[in-house]
């Protein structure tokens, strides 16, 4: 830890990052898609809400929040999208064969840690 701090003293890592600039989730993180029904424009289909998945990739760079953009508010609201892997059997319990899966990009504000 001390070494890490010393290494950072002469590097650009001293730069303080804004909220939302660093991804909240990493590849492999186990997540659940939030269950919310906001009014307005958002891009999380109903069928994935409340479903469990695993972060497969962090999408760079950050993007503006669709929900805010729908009301013309864009400034300071950039966050990451995550490519999330969800098993078909998680979406549809009767699904066969069990190996099939879904991939979908979910905005950071819609993901919860599990």
């Amino acid at each position, binding site marked *: 830890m001390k070494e890490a701090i010393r290494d950072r003293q002469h590097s650009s890592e001293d730069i303080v990052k804004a909220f939302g600039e660093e991804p909240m989730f990493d590849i492999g993180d186990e997540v659940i898609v939030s269950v919310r029904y906001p009014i307005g424009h958002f*891009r999380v289909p109903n069928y994935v809400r409340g479903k469990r998945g695993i972060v497969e990739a962090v*999408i760079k760079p950050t993007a503006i929040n669709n929900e805010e953009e729908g009301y013309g508010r864009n400034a300071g609201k950039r966050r990451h*999208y995550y*490519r999330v892997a969800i098993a*078909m059997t998680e*979406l549809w319990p009767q699904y066969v064969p069990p190996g*099939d*899966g879904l991939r*979908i*990009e979910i905005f950071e504000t819609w993901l919860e840690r599990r």
Partner: protein
Amino acid sequence: MELHGHDHASEPQAHDEAPGYYEVMETALRELLVEKKLIDPAEIRRQIEVLDSRNPALGAKIVARAWVDPGFRSRLLADGRKACEEFGITFYDDTGLIVLENTAEVHNLIVCTLCSCYPRPVLGLPPDWYKQKPYRARAVKEPRALLAEFGTHIQDSVEIRVSDSTAMLRYLVLPLRPAGTENFSEEQLASLVTRDAMIGVVTAELPETKEIMQ
């Protein structure tokens, strides 16, 4: 995004039906934006030309190059948009591109359950069925039954991976190169790659096999 001939009275009418609700809405909004000088009619016409200049032949060239050039293939899989830009394919709509490689273990299928997100910069306009609800719903609920209706039968041991585009990313399927094409030129290979193969509803096939069957 159709331009209607209402201000060109001499133009022959393509259909006699009264414009629908959304058509009227689109015309009203467009005229208002033009009147307020927020957009120019030439910009709309230009954008239609941009869309018309994109078609599946572009995507097929990308796929054929990836089949013959391993370096390009890795660049394409690492950053689809950047690799397409090497070909001069611009991404006028500010979308990213994820290229999904089909393998012996994984078959990819693309859909947009919310609307009709589609890799337009490389494939042009989506087919009608892609935009309609049966495809959009069934692709994520029963992809195997759906694929079977396209004549595509994927073994249960092969994973079907459905990508639902809902954000600023679009997908393009990189199909498996058909066996027996070792001596094909890049151009010949491109001719085997169909729009539907790049959506993932079919595989890339040799046309000869069908002709022989008939």
